[in-house]
């Protein structure tokens, strides 16, 4: 299509709070679409994402970076806010500092300001969605998810959670594509944990290549052994993600296929809920298929 014609620019601000940069690095690993499609080209014809502020890749530093950030955030509902990392609230927010034009402020205050004017918020990664690794016991910096920070401040904004430690790039780019093609996912398209069902609608256990071994009670007892990893603490039975089907790094591999138990990295309360990682989960937590007495249909019993 003709360049420059009928192009809608979608400004985005990518705010890094208490993060490890694993989420942005994972997004760089996208294959189709990939990062070039996302920020240089316009793979969804007529729509281009203008990544105005992204600290890991942007050319500008210091004041120049803060200028463009300020100009973008001035436009009410004029941008989508991507939050990477958890929000540190301990010590009055002073465990995390954020630069702002002409002022110094905290990540906590900055996250709220940026959210207030945003059209919508994408909570990228488990830390941003639920606190994640940065909120692990004893949560030394008082980290919370962006959703929690917003409700604590009484700010109401649509937040889409795209958890994962880090998330699969498709989970992010797929969510962006949905927004560009069809608008934000509606309430039916997300689960109770605020995640798009398209990616987080099924259990790792239900999609796992080693499920046959599970049914046949062939269990690995040590790292590197074949068989289902249930005895080695696999959290696949209660983890909602399509990793086995999608696989990571261009479809090369994923946790269980590489012999490592699912750690439940997309779930609220990860990592504490998953630790000890190698401890077997209780049988009660296993989902199973039963016949519903009233309807007579087969239904899946999920984690209580």
């Amino acid at each position, binding site marked *: 299509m003709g*360049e*420059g014609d009928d192009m809608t*620019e979608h400004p985005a601000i990518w705010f890094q709070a208490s993060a490890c*940069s*694993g*989420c*942005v*690095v994972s997004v*760089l*690993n996208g294959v189709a679409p990939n*990062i*070039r499609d996302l*920020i*240089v080209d316009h793979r969804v014809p007529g729509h*281009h994402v*203008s*990544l*105005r502020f992204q*600290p*890991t*890749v*942007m*050319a*500008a*530093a*210091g004041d*120049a*970076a*803060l200028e463009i950030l300020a100009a973008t955030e001035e436009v009410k509902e004029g941008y989508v806010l991507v939050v990477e990392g958890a929000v*540190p609230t301990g*010590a*009055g927010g*002073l*465990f*995390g*500092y*954020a*630069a702002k034009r002409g002022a*110094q*402020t905290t990540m906590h205050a900055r996250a709220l300001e940026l959210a207030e004017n945003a059209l919508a918020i994408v909570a990228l990664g488990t830390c941003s969605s639920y606190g994640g690794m940065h909120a*692990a*016991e*004893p949560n*030394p*910096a008082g980290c919370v998810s962006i959703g929690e920070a917003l409700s604590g401040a009484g700010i109401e904004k649509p937040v889409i959670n795209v958890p994962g430690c880090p998330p699969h790039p498709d989970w992010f780019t797929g969510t962006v594509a949905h927004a560009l093609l069809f608008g934000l996912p509606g309430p039916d398209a997300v689960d109770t944990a605020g995640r798009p069902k398209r990616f987080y609608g099924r259990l790792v256990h239900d999609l796992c290549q080693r499920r046959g071994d599970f049914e046949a009670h062939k269990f690995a007892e040590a*790292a*590197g052994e074949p068989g289902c990893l249930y005895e080695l603490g696999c959290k696949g039975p209660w983890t909602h993600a399509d990793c086995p089907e999608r696989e*990571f*790094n*261009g479809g*090369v591999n*994923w946790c269980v296929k*590489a*012999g490592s138990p699912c*750690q439940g990295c997309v779930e609220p309360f990860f*990592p504490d809920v998953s630790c*000890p*990682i*190698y*401890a077997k989960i209780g049988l009660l937590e296993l989902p199973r298929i039963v016949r519903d007495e009233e309807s007579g249909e087969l239904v899946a019993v999920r984690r209580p």
Partner: protein
Amino acid sequence: MSGRETISVDPITRIEGHLKVEVVADNGEVKEARCSGQLFRGFELMLLNRDPRDASLLSQRVCGVCPVAHAMASALCLDACFGIDGRVPDNGRVMRNLVLGANFLQSHILHFYHLAALDFVDVTAGADYEGADDRLGSLRDFIKRGELAPFMPRYEGDYRLSKEANQQAASHYVQALEARRAAHEMLSVFGGKMPHQVGIVVGGCTETPTADKIAAFLSRLEMLRRFIEGIYIPDVLTVAEAYGDYFEIGGGVKRWLSYGGLELETEETNLVARERFFPSGRVGADLKPAALDVGRIAEHVRHSWYADESSGRHPSKGETVPAPGKESGYSWIKAPRYEGEPYEVGPLARLLVAYARGDRGARGEVEGVLSRLDAKPEALFSVLGRHAARALEAKRVAEAMVGWAMELRPGEPVCEWREPPEAGRGMGVTEAPRGSVGHWAEIEGGKLVRYQLVVPTTWNASPQDDEGKPGPMEQALVGTRIRDAENPFEVVRIVRSFDPCLACSVHMLTPKGQELARCRVL
């Protein structure tokens, strides 16, 4: 520029994490420099009371750019705690090396093209491009549309490459996105996924090598070797030729150390004496090798926001006791010192240590580059020296990995898997893409009761120590001439040459006018 003035760059972008750098310049010459990050996370505290095996999976989450090096340091540390450090099977040893090696390639390519290059390359030079390179066509259309973020704004006034060289480098910037992604795909063959790989565990690895996996690994490795030798190294040389004055600035402490890393055997349990691809040792500007005794490292906290009682300790005795608001502090990074002296770590340190120790591969590479640039070894003690050392290291690691992949034996053991011991202590020291990394742990009652990390950026971006000696990055800035305070290219080029990774080094700043709350961490 005239008179005394403070130049503050906040945030320093295109690095990992949150960093602010402030320099005081007198008539344009930097007299003082302070590097301060902005975030305290307390990872070490989060690992306490956990099953020790969780540490290799969780501690890597300190950094999404170099998680593998942390997983490796943690696994080596746990191997020692579990008393199995001499018994990791060869397949486990080799797969660990391949996973870490792949992370080196990814990290070095990402650093040069996507973090550092925009300081030297003008990507707008392709605005009227008419050739057939689809990457440049894509960039041209992008520029035409006029929404130039995230490539604009930027510092202006010092882009020196020719139009053709700029265009070629811009095309390589896009190509390098594909190359670094391929490095992660290769990593994932034996590491399961990336970032936050899952393959490296205490005792070895969880993947099982097969011929098809070895071939899948080697296929991507070959593509990367062609990229490194045919594109990455020539691009570094192109930049070096145009910005020759950067061989003269940014030197800093001129003391380097390397713990050594990438295991060539596992029988020797003293890691610094073990035969490793990167040798361990220390070296100064005279390029005479000196031995490394990890017992002589102490962490100072006088100028960091930690309780003073914890200063001067060896990491194995270290404690993380935050003291926000401590008067003498200006950083959340501790200041590690070796026999009281600051040391630089990273690719340049590894290259110089190997060179000084007479490593034939390292000598060959160094001499090759120096003769091409018609320069003396001292030219390496600089901004461009760091970039060159990084590129040469990528080449050497990639070459070595071909041989390592061929050592894998399908069907043979990959891991010496154990339940955690009641008690134990250990140290895991290795090399991350951006420098030396060490983990120290102690187990009691089957749980972790102590866990300390000393990471590369803690060495490089450390604040002043108890004696008031500035850290390596601070010293590298001092003496530099800043040509334009509005566009302080020199500051960001020097800082980025270290490839700082702030996530690893916990840190905080005091917002002006706000009383710092006292906090107690349980």
